[in-house]
């Protein structure tokens, strides 16, 4: 069971990482494209447009929702919702 929990936690972590990468990709891609255009030192082609990322994000959100539901079934709800860790950190103070 602990392996299942670990895998689910890993999936959640990966989803966070991918969503953060998607969020940061677009503004930095615009900056890179601008620098490339102005300096002509290198070439940069933006591979993903913002609107093209909508459906993949929805897909990730659905997976996240399903994983969260499974995690709540496997563990006490407070652990998944992050309340236990908060209480623990409060206790340690």
């Amino acid at each position, binding site marked *: 069971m602990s392996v299942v929990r670990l895998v689910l936690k890993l999936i959640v972590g990966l989803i966070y990482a991918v969503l953060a990468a998607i969020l940061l990709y677009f503004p930095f891609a615009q900056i890179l494209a601008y620098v490339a255009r102005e300096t002509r030192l290198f070439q940069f082609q933006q591979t993903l447009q913002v609107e093209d990322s*909508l459906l993949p994000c929805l897909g990730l959100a659905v997976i996240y929702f399903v994983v969260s539901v499974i995690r709540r079934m496997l563990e006490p709800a407070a652990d998944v919702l992050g309340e236990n860790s908060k209480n623990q950190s409060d206790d340690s103070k």
Partner: protein
Amino acid sequence: MLFNSANYAIFLITALLLFWSSPRRIRVYVIVGLSFYFYMYSYPIYFFLLAILTLFNFAMGLEMSRRPQSARLYLTLALTLDLLSIAFYKYANFAAHTLQSMLGFVGVKTNFVVAEITLPLGISFFTFQMMSYIINTYRGERAEESFWNFAAYVSFFPHLAAGPILRPTTMLPQIKGEQHYDEEQVVRGMFLIAQGLIKKIAFADYLGSYVDKVYAAPADYHGLAALIAVYAYAFQIYFDFSGYTDIAIGCSKLLGFQIPINFDLPYISKSPREFWRRWHISLSSWLRDYLYISLGGNRKGRWRTHFNMMTTMVLGGLWHGANWTFVLWGTYHGILISAQRFLEEQFEFFRRLSAKKSAVLSALATVFTFHLVCLGWVLFRSKSISQAGTVLGNIFRAAFVWNSAQTPIVLMLALAVISHVMRSKWDMESWYVRMPAPVQAFGYACVTIVIYLFFTTEQRFIYFQF
């Protein structure tokens, strides 16, 4: 991303799944992430503008509370950056064109090129929110200590594009507190989203199609045709903006947040001052609290009060856009409010008028105020002062002849008036919430059909340009 688009529907479902599935301690990051993604949808590069302004205002607020002796300096720095951002993106072109025209008028010919600057989405709204936070902190309110809470307050996506302009005291406690899933709030949220879509797609866009035709060639429309366009625009802008606000409030409710109303049936107002208490409430109360009162309000004598009212309304007009028509529109409303105050000061009859409960007088005052407001909308909608003159002049330039092509527009206007009057008597939202689920489902089905029948293309909300 437009609220009336399929992409927004996908985004909202994604947002709800991510938000409600997330542990409570990370929900604020989810809100900030979603809001920045929403913002990037129009121009990704302006992500940096929003992020830098948020960071700077947050830092200034924090420094202000840590070093109260230098609070004035931090206030000045923060307000300067906020105002410079609006001035650069919104008014640089307007100022340059005006300067060019003025120099040309005195015989100096200039040929400096003015770069076309794309207006960042919602800049007038989020900078005003940051300014209200900074001024409140300066006035003694506690500064927010978490950057993420502050970023969520500034960028909360349902109101990021076109308000309402939220106060820190309304939003920050909600962000810091826990959001609970409440079925009644969800139903209310769904109702408001449906109502907003109906207002936008069935009313605003439909009336807008006629208004656009008239304002594209105002010389071709006379008499009744021009008059109908004036009324149609009054309802188009109301349904467009209040529809947007309904969707914003509805989406916030789905996420467990409460946003105050921005419109309270403005066209039933009996005076210009009452109109401004009912129209774009978040902006008019912002102007009152941070501009009118800062100028001295009504505490510095009679004439100074009139001057303060005029200044507030002129700047309020200019806030809407970089064009002389907006300045004139603001001035016009300033004159109306100032005149109302003057008449109430001078004549007993006008002082007692607002207290009188006569139905006939109330109806007359409502109709008169509505027409005064409509006159202002002509200035607001026109691209130039001469175009406004043409539209208004053409109303009286021909006989009022009925044209069958105008029938659907007039019917729609009648429906708009009926719905406006009905809403003042009947709280439909509370009634709908109490209905059993099948009745609610039937309501959503009807809304879907109406949207399907009226939807042509995704039309931008009018206030997105501000």
